């Protein structure tokens, strides 16, 4: 559980914040708000009810103290925009309307600070004046040009320490030696320089947790993704044993606990919604997300979406009327399993019969030398195995085991059952010893059934059909290529390409510096859209997310020579696009030949016309098309195919012939696309659709149409074949209309 939080933002809304300085395209305020909005939306995105935020502006036109102090004297031009509360999307929208530079430069940041402290105190002390457990934070963004009344500033600093309020003060264009930031024409803004000094001293007096910095540095930091911390939850607490301690004297048992070591952080998922119908068709008021989108793809606006519920219906084959389905009620259904196509019913009381009886345990099976273990076998995320908390003996025993594995250069194989009656899995146990960490790492290993034994030809030699070995072949690299590859791989080594803070050589792109691109991209864009509902152009992903998508440029230029040599030796060529169309294809040559290379067409005397045989439909159709490039012959083959497909449908008992018809349609569609004669197919499929839906093929054949639709065997459109005059929209429409 994360700690409760109370954070107050103090924003400088003075007239001078509306100026654009140092050639920036944004006003000072907009620039500062980039930071503030990011902070606020990050908190909102957690959805935590206990993360409270308040917003106070100073140097505002109005004065509104939100009832926090009785007397307004000395608190003029301060406005409380929002009390401490959980922020929701509408709060963001409301605040956005209100935040803009005022017409005045009057208003004291220190007075605003006093209000903020009061705001936090009111919230974080109970009625009896007891301090509640809260993380208290105040974040100030100002350009420091306003007048400040420094009376009582020391008392205030003391109060910060006492109330444990974390103060962060960010100055627009403040000097920051750490950041190497030094404004050169500061003379023009004398007040700013003086104020900077005062504020800096003040922040220093507010305790260790207080921070003072320049806004530019804070904004730069925004792009560095924040990593969500997760509380470790043990997936197994029990013992690690060697031997059977029930039946043998000497066995080893160590109390251990198992915690996640890696776990994939998933990006937020979008849920399904449907546009509310009761609100009418008009677009929402202020929250229209994208003005350019119209019609079908009209983006629904916030608040206009309704959640979607799923409902399941169950069907079985009707015993009274084979070939048809009937709906069944959930209460007539029981649990079962499929064994092949046989249904096996397992009653509630027998539910455990298919489970293997196990009890929670982690048992050692044996050991393997590290270097003989295939690194590609592990198939899961990993876990830490650590001694039971506050158990010295377990610590000592596990430590001896970890070091023994390490010194012997071995891994252990063990059988893990995380809970009674859970299936056993095999895990690899690997020692991990680091300065402040000593643990075993476990990772799941495959069982026999998990391995697919596909075979692939060797890469370093070629075997002929007769089994002869060839060492020289276009698929086998020659010495020149081997050398070029070796040089290139060595030149592109990045194990020491990185630089640490001291400029020393270090590993390039260590795990800790590579952030999940999609996760942070989606989080980033959701937050962005929350504050930019009207923008139509999405911002590009932050550079840090794409940094590791390609080799570093510096390295590439260093390895240029080796790379050119590799390119030359490799001599890779792109395969030209396949020739299509009935005239362009080279007949015969394209036809696949059997292993012996026998020309089957020649064997049959290269017939010019092949008759379509209903009993051998697909092969004869393909052969008929292969034998000719005469349009008329193609048309007649297609016609015969068409009539065969129709008769397959019309003679089908129930749905029995639909599968064959569908396959024939698929082949016809593919072949005619290949020949670039889409019109022949399109004409046929239009007719077929009319016949099927119009009931002209002996009975109700609508199910056949659903299948054609489901398989997307409709019109061939332009995207699929350039010779088609059917647009993509037209093709999509074809599926819809009935």
């Amino acid at each position, binding site marked *: 559980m994360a700690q409760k939080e109370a954070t107050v933002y103090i924003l400088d809304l003075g007239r001078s914040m509306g100026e654009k300085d140092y050639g920036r395209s944004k006003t000072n305020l907009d620039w500062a708000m980039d930071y503030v909005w990011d902070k606020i939306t990050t908190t909102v995105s957690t959805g935590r009810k206990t993360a409270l935020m308040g917003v106070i502006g100073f140097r505002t036109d109005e004065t509104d103290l939100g009832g926090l102090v009785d007397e307004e004297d000395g608190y003029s031009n301060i406005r409380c925009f929002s009390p401490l509360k959980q*922020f929701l*999307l509408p709060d*963001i929208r409301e605040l956005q309307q209100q935040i803009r530079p005022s017409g005045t430069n009057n208003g004291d940041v220190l007075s605003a600070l006093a209000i903020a402290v009061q705001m936090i105190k009111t919230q974080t002390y109970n009625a009896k004046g007891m301090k509640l457990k809260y993380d208290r934070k105040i974040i100030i963004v100002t350009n420091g040009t306003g007048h400040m009344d420094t009376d009582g500033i020391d008392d205030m600093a003391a109060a910060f320490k006492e109330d444990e309020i974390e103060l962060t003060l960010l100055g627009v264009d403040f000097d920051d030696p750490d950041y190497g930031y030094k404004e050169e024409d500061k003379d023009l803004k004398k007040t700013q320089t003086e104020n900077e000094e005062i504020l800096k001293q003040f922040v220093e007096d507010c305790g260790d947790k207080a921070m003072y910095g320049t806004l530019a540095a804070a904004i730069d930091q925004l792009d560095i993704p924040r*990593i969500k911390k997760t509380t470790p939850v043990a997936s197994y607490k029990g013992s690690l044993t*060697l031997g*059977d301690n029930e039946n043998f004297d000497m066995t080893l048992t160590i109390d251990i606990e198992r915690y996640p070591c*890696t776990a994939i952080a998933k990006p937020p998922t*979008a849920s*399904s*919604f449907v546009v509310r119908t009761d609100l009418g068709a008009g677009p929402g008021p202020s929250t229209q997300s994208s003005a350019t989108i119209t019609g079908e793809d009209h983006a629904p606006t916030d608040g206009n*979406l309704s959640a979607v*519920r799923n409902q399941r*219906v169950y069907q079985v084959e009707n015993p009274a009327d084979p070939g048809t389905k009937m709906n069944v009620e959930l209460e007539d259904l029981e649990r*079962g399993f499929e064994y*092949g*196509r*046989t249904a096996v019913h397992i009653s509630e009381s027998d539910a455990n*019969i298919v489970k293997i009886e196990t*009890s929670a345990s982690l048992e050692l099976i044996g*050991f393997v*030398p590290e270097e*003989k273990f295939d*690194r*590609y*076998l592990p*198939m899961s995320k*990993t876990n830490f195995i650590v001694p*039971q908390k506050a158990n010295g003996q377990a610590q*000592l025993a596990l430590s001896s085991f970890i070091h023994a594995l390490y010194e012997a250069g071995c891994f252990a194989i063990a*059988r893990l059952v995380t809970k009674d009656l859970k*299936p056993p899995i095999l895990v690899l146990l690997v020692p991990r010893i680091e300065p402040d960490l000593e643990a075993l790492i476990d990772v799941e290993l*495959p*069982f026999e059934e998990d391995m*697919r034994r596909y*075979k*692939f030809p060797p*890469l370093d030699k070629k075997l002929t*059909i*007769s089994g002869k070995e060839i060492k020289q072949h*276009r*698929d086998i*690299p020659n010495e020149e*290529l081997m050398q070029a590859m070796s040089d290139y791989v060595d030149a592109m080594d990045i194990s020491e390409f990185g630089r640490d803070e001291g400029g020393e050589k270090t590993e*390039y792109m260590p795990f800790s510096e*590579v952030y*999940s691109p999609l*996760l942070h991209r*989606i989080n980033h864009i*959701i937050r962005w859209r929350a504050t930019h509902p009207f923008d139509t152009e*999405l911002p590009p*992903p932050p550079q840090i997310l794409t940094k590791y998508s390609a080799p570093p440029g510096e390295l590439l230029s260093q390895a240029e020579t080796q790379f050119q040599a590799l390119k030359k030796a*490799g001599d890779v*060529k792109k395969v030209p696009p396949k020739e299509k169309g009935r005239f362009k294809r080279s007949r015969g040559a394209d036809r696949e030949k*059997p292993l*012996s290379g026998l020309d089957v067409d020649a064997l049959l005397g290269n017939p010019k016309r092949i008759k379509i045989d209903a009993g051998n439909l*697909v092969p004869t159709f393909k052969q008929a098309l292969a034998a000719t490039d005469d349009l008329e012959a193609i048309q007649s083959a297609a016609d015969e195919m068409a009539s065969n497909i129709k008769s397959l449908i019309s003679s089908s008992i129930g749905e029995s012939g*639909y599968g064959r018809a569908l*396959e024939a349609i698929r082949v016809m569609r593919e072949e005619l696309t290949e020949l670039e004669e889409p019109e022949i197919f399109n004409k046929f499929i239009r007719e077929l659709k009319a016949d099927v839906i119009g009931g002209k093929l002996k009975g109700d054949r609508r199910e056949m149409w659903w299948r054609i639709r489901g*398989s997307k*065997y409709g019109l061939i459109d332009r995207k699929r074949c350039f010779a088609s005059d059917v647009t993509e929209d037209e093709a999509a429409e074809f599926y819809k209309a009935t």
Partner: protein
Amino acid sequence: MADSTFDNRPGEEEEDEEEEIDDSSYKTIKDAVLFAIDVSATMLERPPKSEDKKADRDSPTSAALKCAYQLMQQRIISNPKDMMGILLFGTEKTDLGDGDTTFQNCYLLSDLDVPSAQDVKRLRDLFENEDEAAQLLKPADEPATIATVLFCANQIFTTKAPNFSSRRLFLVTDNDYPVKVKQDKDTAVTRARDLYDLGCTIDLFPISRSDHTFDRSKFYDDLVYPSSPSDPDTPIAYASTTKNVKSGDGITLLKQLLSSINSKAAPRRALFSLPFELGPDLRIGVKGFILIKRQEHVKSCYVWVGGEKIQIATGATTHMADDTARVVEKFELRKAYKFGGDTITFSTEEFQQIRQCFGDPIIRIVGFKPLSMLPIWANVNKATFIYPSESDFIGSTRVFSALQQKLLKSKKMAIVWFIPRRNAAPSIAALIPGEERYDENGDQTMPPGLWLVPLPFADDIRQCPDQGENLKASEGLVDIMRKVVEQLQLPKGVYDPSKYPNPDLQWFYRILQAMALEEEVPDKPDDKTVPKYKQIDKRTGHILEEFSGAFDEEWRQQSKTKSKPISTGRKRTAPAASAAADDDDEDDVKPKKRAKKVKAEPASQANGDDGMTDQEMADLNDQGKISSLKVDEIKKWLKARGEAVTGKKPELIFKIQAYLDDKGFK
């Protein structure tokens, strides 16, 4: 049920936003295998009787049937939606089901379909019941022509599995020239081409006799095509198809046949086909294959028990708007993110832009590192196998081969940026070299290539929970433990997955099969993952004894120097359960029930009125179970012995241990 398996070849639809590589789409390639087994005098000939237990007893035909039986059972587990059928040819009997006699001397033993429990039983009965087998496996005087067999297969595939994207004919025969005149051969060649055009593959499993080596080039090379429709661009590995099974050799015919059939058990199909960028403008083509994947058993489903026959109920989902309960079509659905109590939404184009802003699908090398920079703790998921393909770039294979060999030689890996397909999340992966491996018969056991091992992002790495204090074992203690590690090496020092069938999966299907056939349910699983206790005791018992002594000594010293008391841990068990089956030859003992009993012990004793005796407490201490006692119980026990009862639980436990030590319990 049967219908729903039919529409399985949807068009290339634009995928919705999918989170990961979609393994399920990889599985949806449906496969239909028809076994065609030659029944002839030579195929039925049994090997000479031998005293050797391991010698062959099967005729080639019966070995083939046993293979089919095993494959059928295996496929029910691994590919529950796939079809299988068995066709005998050359039999005296002719029957294609329901008395169909179109194809002379062809007998359809099991129709092409998803196997049922009855199909499994029928096949098993055939080699358990010799009379029935003898009647059925009778060769005809005039054997079926091979052209007939091929056309018969054509018809079976066309009608039974019309939309299957993978359809394979497994032909088992010992006859390398099954025709008499050239004309018959020409007919066979045409029929084979028909099958090819239909989209079916012929996989030949040739059998050599002791006096005759099967020569593929005489006939079958004109019938078999080099590529398969489901895996068109990757060359087939010839090794598995050319290997002739010779009867009478050391290894049994059945085993050999099984091994070559197993390598073809599932159709190979690429998970993705991608450009692989080695540097700017240097791209080659590669394909990715899943070679390792957790095989789960089928999920439970609803069965309808309202009729005479139990039926599986198929479900269909409809979407309804929550506010109006209106039925919603799929195209009406909108995706939105929940944010601040509301929704944040994007247009379809924007959704695409968000996901696709990282560029096109690719594997791109960022640089190279030594393999030692890939610690096991950094594993996040299974590895994908990568093999070159010439279909987009000529020269891919040689460049890929050079890279694989270099990485093997220098023990290096490539770090790559990897987007498996459009809309998929980009990831960083290590490309590590995989060496080709063979078994003692020269059959490939591991293919040569590269493995794509996904790496964790900073976001995926968790912190290890703090363990408080930090006791470290001394060198002496580690040295003893090291002997245990060295004593208990697995055979050949390797982890071989094929030695460990998944006990849960096997048990599940054994029970299910028995229930489907209404046979007696077995009572004991065969679990190869249970450690070999007897062997462990034999090899390490004496070392553990030594360790135990050294440990106690070290513990005493380390805990003395620590000011903070520590609760107990157990490092060896009480010798109470000395009913050790030392002279028992079996490795399997039944620890489960006993284990439960032991667990119950502390609880039952704690509930006792009199409290525990010193001996009982000492036993508990040895078992490391003291910490499971409640503070109240501990205090009661200590009080009864006149000890002080102040302090927290760990301190109290320490007091018990000190007390026991003083009393001489150890």
